[in-house]
């Protein structure tokens, strides 16, 4: 049995049946990181001794016959914009190079109670701004399926770590596709929860009205387990929502799939959609159809406005959220003078500066109504599109990204081209809806392609049930 290919459920059964110990599994993942991460660049930091210690504690607790969570002992990668007390958290930025988190993010607190093993912090585009993980101030992460290609982003480190057997699962964050697009590029599962389902406390904010933390895993079943462990109302995040997460979210029931109606948004099959991606998605749709699941065409007429809407509204939130990083608080760059202007000039990378300055522009007097407020109105139109179609269908199915993983360096000089790789994932963030990317097949060049299922607000159970059904059908 290859320990680096285990799923969470297999791991959890295995340590209970004494097929292997948690410590053996954690050691196997650490060994994989030591031998292969120099070629992938997924991790910014690895917590070797703490990881072994937690795994040993889990093994001891099992010996004593304690009741443990199915997540106990699972070696988890954590995107480096999520705080773990006492450890360095950089958000992929020079401006936080020496910042040590002074508290745990709420999701980390929850997972610590379940004795999850944090194996390391994973690379990301600076402050989660990007679609390729090339914007990190520290390193470029490579796609494990083809090292000349990007892993997607901004949670590229987490996706690459899971896809290459260096973490059993990982946490990412998704503002406009940053969990789902890298999941699609790396051939894993990525879930972006409903806005408000998971606490954002301790997630370094990028676009507060859209950021969500979510699981990146090998299977839909694992995504459901990890999601149900981090979901819930938190007094430290006023936008988190109290919701009855029924048992079926942790263990979604694939037999419910047949009761769900799927809509195919025709605006997601545009010119520019890669032909191999189209073929994979059409095969996935055929499978659902041939099994008697109701599939109909629907229309989301404002889809084309989602990317320009986001690139107007998001910079405004970014400029406000990043105002606190000034080299006076958090961390200081010793190479620059102590003036906040110099610290910010040297500390932020190009994309961060671009967004901050653009945000200052869209919020400034004279431009606020024409840009920021206009974008907020368009956001309503996009959100209403979904509300209308969800009167007739339960779930939407689309490609996750218009292309498979692109080459490193291919889009780095053209921000607008880079932004368009989020054209199918972004609208759901504007509307606050849950969505999941699931591996659907491969291109002729053997690159993974994901399909996306979008659910109604707080109906993670629907997309997870359909995903589980698909997994069962295709693994048989």
């Amino acid at each position, binding site marked *: 049995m290859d320990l680096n290919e285990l799923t969470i459920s297999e791991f959890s059964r295995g340590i209970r049946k004494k097929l292997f110990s948690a410590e053996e599994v954690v050691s196997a993942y650490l060994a994989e990181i030591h031998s292969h991460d120099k070629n992938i660049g997924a991790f910014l930091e690895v917590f070797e001794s703490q990881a072994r210690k937690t795994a040993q504690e889990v093994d001891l607790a099992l010996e004593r016959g304690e009741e443990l969570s199915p997540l106990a002992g699972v070696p988890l990668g954590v995107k480096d914009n999520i705080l773990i007390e006492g450890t360095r958290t950089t958000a992929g930025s020079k401006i936080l190079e020496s910042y040590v988190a002074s508290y745990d993010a709420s999701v980390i607190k929850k997972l610590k109670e379940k004795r999850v093993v944090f194996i390391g912090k994973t690379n990301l585009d600076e402050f989660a701004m990007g679609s390729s993980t090339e914007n990190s101030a520290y390193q470029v992460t490579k796609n494990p399926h083809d090292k000349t290609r990007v892993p997607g982003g901004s949670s590229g480190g987490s996706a690459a770590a899971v896809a290459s057997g260096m973490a059993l699962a990982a946490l990412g964050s998704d503002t406009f596709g940053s969990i789902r697009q890298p999941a699609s590029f790396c051939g894993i599962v990525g879930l972006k929860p409903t*806005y408000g389902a998971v606490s954002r406390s301790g997630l370094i904010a990028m676009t507060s009205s859209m950021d969500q933390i979510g699981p990146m895993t090998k299977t839909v079943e694992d995504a459901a387990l990890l999601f149900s462990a981090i979901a819930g109302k938190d*007094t430290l995040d006023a936008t988190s929502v109290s919701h009855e997460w029924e048992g079926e979210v942790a263990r979604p029931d694939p037999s419910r799939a047949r009761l769900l109606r799927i809509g195919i948004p025709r605006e997601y099959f545009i010119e520019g959609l890669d032909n191999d991606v189209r073929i994979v998605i059409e095969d996935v749709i055929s499978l659902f159809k041939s099994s008697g699941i109701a599939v109909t065409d629907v229309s989301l007429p404002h889809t084309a406005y989602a990317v320009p809407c986001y690139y107007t509204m998001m910079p405004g939130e970014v400029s406000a959220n990043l105002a606190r990083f000034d080299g006076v608080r958090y961390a*200081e760059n010793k190479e620059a003078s102590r003036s906040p202007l110099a610290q910010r000039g040297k500390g932020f990378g190009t994309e961060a500066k671009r967004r901050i300055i653009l945000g200052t*522009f869209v919020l400034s007097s004279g431009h606020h109504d024409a840009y920021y407020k206009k974008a907020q109105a368009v956001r309503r139109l996009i959100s209403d599109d979904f509300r209308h179609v969800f009167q007739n269908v339960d779930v939407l199915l689309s490609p996750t990204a218009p292309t498979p993983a692109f080459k490193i360096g291919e889009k780095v000089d053209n921000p607008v081209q880079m932004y368009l790789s989020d054209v199918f994932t972004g609208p759901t963030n504007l509307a606050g809806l849950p969505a999941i990317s699931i591996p659907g097949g491969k291109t002729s060049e053997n690159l993974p392609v994901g399909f996306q299922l979008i659910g109604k607000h707080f109906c993670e159970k629907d997309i997870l049930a359909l995903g589980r059904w698909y997994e069962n059908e295709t693994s048989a």
Partner: protein
Amino acid sequence: MSLEINKKTLEHLAKLSKIDLDPQEEEHLAQDMQSIVDYVKVLQSLDTSSVSPMNGGGELENSFRQDSERENTNQGNGRELFPHTHEGLLAVPPVFK
């Protein structure tokens, strides 16, 4: 609406954003920003006169918590991690010269 991002606009915005830019960077940023502003112009073609702007990610209104006793924040820890301290106080660069 056509808007030009020139050197002067950019320098003003950089000042408001509290970011020092070097001249080379300025040129690139001005070009990038121009292409983004041109790209997002398409929003102006939509009639939104009867649409109420969406101000947040969810539909919550007046989200208050109970004013009750709760776990203390870790102020001491924050102070320890502050880049410069002086006799237990936070030291910041001088504001006045």
